């Protein structure tokens, strides 16, 4: 027995020793350098219909950049399901790309990790200055009062898309502008297997986007001014209840939507099963699903009353993609040049046109193409009535905790269980308690 114990102790010591060396290595390499000025690695998020489409769109631009600067950019398009994990592992290990796209809601979290190059005035000067960008887009690139962790690349906002034929069949002449009208119209449409509104009940991010806006409309914020979670205010509870009630009480959302998480609501829309959907930049998807441009219409997302604006009349989050430089880059100058290239007026116009998004670059926005039916409303919303999601370090915990709570509430609603103010409040209280305390 003692022999075994001795051997076990020996093994444990060895393991510990090895561990110590392994940890010691750490990811200590600090700021960027210019050790390899001729190449860059770029992680792009999946913006187009597929990864293959994105490569086709981006590669010619990268070639252009190489021609201008002699820097070769290695492109990897990463699916959304993997992107955050990949960034996380890159951050932990210090081994990552030089330049990368991030969802703008992650900005503050990633900023807190210190993995991204801060865009102070000096860095902004290298790409033409902070003033080139729309203010709300800059506002969703990092926590308030800190240098942004990224630069806005594509901007989007939510709008209400409606199916013209279904509206006509139900005898509705004009698309709704308030929630009351949405419900009234929805009720007219929701019969015989057709439904008024679509939701992605199992998609945590989408849930968050919707209830964020609704909470604003009820005069509530999810975080206090100093960044503490505040999920149980009357406004927040009312917002979640109003959203889930669209299925539970108003019955204008099909119960089946409770399990949607993969954009099924868009294909329901283009198959004339659902008449309305709240989405960001859905035009290209409708097209790929065989819907003609004149078969659908788009109007600003609904408010409680009055017209979209700021304060309680916010009707969209500032959605979008930011481009960031990884602090450990070995080609700092090249990375900055690449960001400058990607956010230049010309590229901004071109890429945003392709992806159906809005350029966060003011000069690029002037292009008349962005006033077309599909994007005009988005641009308008972004300029007048959109607000950035809370830029706090715990944003991803917020999405998980509250997004899951909404998902569970939708599941209850779909199963016919009652959704009451109390049950909503209980779910949100739980979500708040599971947030980190520091």
């Amino acid at each position, binding site marked *: 027995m003692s*022999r*075994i114990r001795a*051997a*076990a102790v020996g*093994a444990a010591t060895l393991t510990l020793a090895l561990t110590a060396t*392994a*940890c010691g*290595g*750490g*990811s200590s390499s600090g700021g960027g350098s210019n050790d390899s000025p001729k190449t860059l690695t770029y992680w792009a998020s*999946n913006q187009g*219909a*597929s*990864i*293959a489409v994105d490569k086709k769109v981006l590669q010619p631009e990268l070639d252009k950049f190489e021609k201008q600067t002699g820097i070769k950019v290695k492109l*990897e*398009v*990463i*699916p*959304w*399901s*993997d992107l955050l*994990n*990949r960034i996380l*592992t890159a951050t*932990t*290990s*210090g*081994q990552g790309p030089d330049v990368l796209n991030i969802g703008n809601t992650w900005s503050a979290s990633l900023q807190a990790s210190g993995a991204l190059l801060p865009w102070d005035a000096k860095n902004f000067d290298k790409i033409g200055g902070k003033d080139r960008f729309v203010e709300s887009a800059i506002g969703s690139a990092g926590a308030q009062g800190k240098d942004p962790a990224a630069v806005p690349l594509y901007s989007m906002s939510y709008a209400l898309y409606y199916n013209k034929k279904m509206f006509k069949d139900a005898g509705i002449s004009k698309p709704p502008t308030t929630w009351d009208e949405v419900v009234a119209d929805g009720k007219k449409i929701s019969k015989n297997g057709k439904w008024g509104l679509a939701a992605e009940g199992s998609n945590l991010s989408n849930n968050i986007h919707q209830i964020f806006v609704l909470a604003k409309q009820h005069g509530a914020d999810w975080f206090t001014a100093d960044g503490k979670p505040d999920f149980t205010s009357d406004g927040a509870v009312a917002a979640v209840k109003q959203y889930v009630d669209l299925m539970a009480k108003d019955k204008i959302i099909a119960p089946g939507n409770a399990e949607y998480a*993969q*954009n*099924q609501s*868009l*294909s329901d829309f283009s*198959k004339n099963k659902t008449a309305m959907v709240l989405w960001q930049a859905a035009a*290209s*998807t409708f097209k*790929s*699903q065989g819907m003609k441009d004149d078969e659908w219409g788009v109007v600003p997302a609904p408010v409680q009353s009055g017209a979209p604006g700021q304060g309680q009349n916010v009707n969209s989050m500032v959605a979008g993609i930011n481009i960031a430089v990884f602090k450990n880059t070995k080609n700092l100058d090249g990375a900055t040049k690449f960001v400058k290239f990607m956010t230049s007026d010309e590229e901004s116009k071109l890429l945003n046109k392709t992806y159906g998004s809005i350029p966060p670059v003011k000069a690029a926005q002037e292009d008349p193409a962005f006033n077309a039916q599909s994007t005009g409303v988005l641009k308008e919303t972004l300029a007048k009535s959109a607000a950035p999601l809370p830029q706090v370090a715990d944003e991803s915990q917020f999405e998980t905790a509250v997004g899951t709570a909404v998902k569970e509430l939708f599941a209850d609603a779909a199963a016919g269980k009652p959704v009451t103010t109390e049950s909503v409040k209980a779910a949100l209280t739980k979500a708040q308690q599971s947030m980190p305390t520091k």
Partner: protein
Amino acid sequence: MSDTTVRHRSPMAAPRSFVWSRRIFLTLLAGFVLLPVFVMVSSSLKPLQDVQGEFRWIPSGLTIRPYVDIWSTVPLAKYFTNSVIVAGAATVCSVIIAVFAAYAVSRYRFRGKRVFTVTVLSTQMLPGILFLLPLFLIYVNIGNATGIALFGSRGGLILTYMTFTLPFSIWMLIGYFESVPRDLDEAALVDGCGPLGALFRIIVPAAIPGIVAVAVYSFMTAWGEVLFASVMTNETTRTLSVGLGAYANLNDVYWNQIMAASLVVSVPVVAGFLLLQRYLVTGLTAGAVK
């Protein structure tokens, strides 16, 4: 449930009631097993509006479009190659290493043997999530220190998978080797073969079924693993188990393509598995079950 339905075989004629209960049970079971397979095959041949609409047993039309489209929607061929390389290499390495280790344990007496076997086996208990991040850090550090790229490369994944399957493989092979009569390899040693000669000329040939069983197990594990593959691969080294997920990541869920791709990647594995199943049963008989 087995209490009421299971009857035992008889060496003579089986009673009628037994035959009937067997028929019913096996038919139900076959239905349960085949249902998803049927769905997979039929859905892969349906047009998109069929798979996106309400389920129907009889398709409105048949198309082989999905089988054409899968190759361009997602770089399936590349993922497939990666999976074959990763699972294949992990299997070969794992089997060789397990053969050595099992030989040492089954034929030699040495200090620390018990610690070794118990430790190795107890790693079966480790929740993968516990060492995902540490392992990843170790690979990165090894990469930084030696320049050997383990993270993001197929090599790292191979190393990981072969270790995953080692404990079960070693343990199976110990069992199998012990069933090979010692007299055989002792005779070989007396005839002047070295220990390795005895291993490769006598024991390994006698243990082929066990080795095949272990190889199949290793291959299957590596082929289907998701967690480590999702973190440790990049675009060029991504394996199928993760890569197939890309069909669901698009703006639209192409169920027919998902099914077609699933079927395409399953057919070689299932075929190989079924070809080797005879070995598998005999291999397990002596190894696991001894």
